[in-house]
């Protein structure tokens, strides 16, 4: 099993380690609800080094990036970060990614479980175009600081410069932790920063962030709360809300289709766009004590009409929440729905994503001097 450079630190912090996407990762250091609440009320520090980081720096980078993904990279301004997808030729989802526009080219942050599959496609297309690709996944690590106190932590780290970042923007900064690529992005529904850091400095950065935040109640946070946080915030997870058997329309993620260029899958996408999807992905509250889980069946009467993509007990709301993929005609008819989890059934109520959104007292990036 693969490990990240921070594994020894996780063990020192008494993390419970589990396998995730082929990596040995911390699922929790204390318990999920404690870590979840720390991120909602203070801040949490996460190891995201298992995710892949791929850079495109050669003169043909733009052509390659346009071929690979669904955002219009040509019009992506320097310092912007955007959500995009890699698709199969059939127009289903190979991966969902963040694309960064950097001074010298582009950066993709890709899912850990898709690193090999993505790189196979990326290298194949690069070879066809005579372009170069740099897999920086192992040279670089990745640490996130997320929560309402994230900006305070960053100040105490001596990284004030990055407070100028607005939501979904990035910059490089020189620091005692080497050259950092910092973005104001995250997967928790809170304000926060993600740091791409040279692997040899990752430990120092992680420890310093916890030290800086100790008076705020900052905690190391595992993948357990990362999942409850992202689901409350309505953010999709590859392998749940979408995969190679799901297209972006069915996943409700067609807002990521922003490129007019010819990319892998674009012809299939044009065909799909002509007719409404037969399945839709929706948000549900589910009654009863049982947590709906991926694979739980959605019932209309006795008929199975869909399946749960993700489900959890929302620590913030104290009730069961889920995303589910359901027959579009059933949804249009407004038929009452139930969720069957093992032998238990609970009534389901449709709602809108996100289940949780933070109160924004001031716009993110407002720390910037006018």
């Amino acid at each position, binding site marked *: 099993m693969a490990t990240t450079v921070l594994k020894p630190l996780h063990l020192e912090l008494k993390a419970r380690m589990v396998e995730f996407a082929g990596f040995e990762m911390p699922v929790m250091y204390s*318990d999920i*609800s404690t870590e979840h609440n720390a991120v909602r009320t203070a801040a949490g520090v996460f190891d995201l080094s298992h995710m892949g980081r791929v850079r495109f720096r050669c003169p043909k980078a733009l052509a390659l990036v346009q071929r690979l993904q669904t955002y219009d990279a040509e019009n992506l301004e320097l310092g912007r970060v955007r959500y995009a997808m890699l698709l199969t030729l059939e127009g289903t989802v190979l991966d969902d990614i963040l694309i960064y526009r950097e001074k010298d080219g582009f950066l993709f942050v890709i899912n850990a479980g898709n690193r090999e599959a993505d790189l196979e496609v990326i290298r194949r297309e690069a070879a066809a175009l005579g372009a170069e690709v740099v897999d920086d996944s192992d040279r670089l690590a990745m640490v996130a600081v997320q929560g309402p106190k994230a900006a305070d932590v960053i100040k105490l780290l001596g990284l004030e410069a990055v407070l100028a970042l607005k939501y979904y923007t990035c910059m490089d900064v020189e620091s005692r932790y080497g050259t950092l690529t910092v973005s104001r992005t995250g997967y928790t529904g809170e304000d926060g920063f993600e740091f791409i850091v040279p692997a040899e400095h990752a430990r120092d950065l992680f420890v310093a962030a916890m030290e800086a935040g100790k008076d705020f109640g900052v905690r190391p946070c595992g993948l*357990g709360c990362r999942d409850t946080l992202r689901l409350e915030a309505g953010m999709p997870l590859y392998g749940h809300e979408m995969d190679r058997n799901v297209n972006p329309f069915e996943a409700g993620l067609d807002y990521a289709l922003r490129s007019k260029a010819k990319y892998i899958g674009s012809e299939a996408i044009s065909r799909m766009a002509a007719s409404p999807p037969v399945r839709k992905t929706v948000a549900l509250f589910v009654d009863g004590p*049982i947590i709906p889980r991926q694979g739980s069946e959605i019932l209309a009467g006795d008929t199975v009409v869909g399946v749960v993509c993700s489900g*959890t*007990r929302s620590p913030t709301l104290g009730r069961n929440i889920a995303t589910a993929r359901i027959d579009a005609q059933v949804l249009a008819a407004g038929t009452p729905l139930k969720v069957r989890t093992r032998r238990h059934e609970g009534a389901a109520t449709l709602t809108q994503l996100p289940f949780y959104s933070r109160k924004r007292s001031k716009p993110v990036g407002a720390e910037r001097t006018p």
Partner: protein
Amino acid sequence: MNFPADLKYTDKDEWARVDAPGSVAWIGITAHAVEQLSDLVFLDLPEVGKDIQQGEVFGEIESVKAVADLYAPVTGEVLERNDALIEDLSILKSDPYGKGWMLKIRMEKVSEQDGLLSPAAYQKSVNDRSAGH
């Protein structure tokens, strides 16, 4: 971790406290199980009057992370069910071997308890399972 000396254990993290004549057993799950599960949200136990079989599933316990089956340490009829525990799973964290009992069982086979693990044997089972981590 605390595994009281007066209890018998299974390698699936249940305990049984058997009375002196060997006729009645209180059963529950160990502090190790509670710690492993974390973030408990739901406990499903059989009704009073139901029969449970040693080694077979008698209920389930759910955490935010996962669902776990509960395996009966002894065979017999459910005499009492701890409904207060079902209402407040935090008791499992504070007092897994006392107020955290799940069922009181009228034992069918007195000899069954001889097949259960001593505290030392259970501790070894826990250690062996975590050795791979």
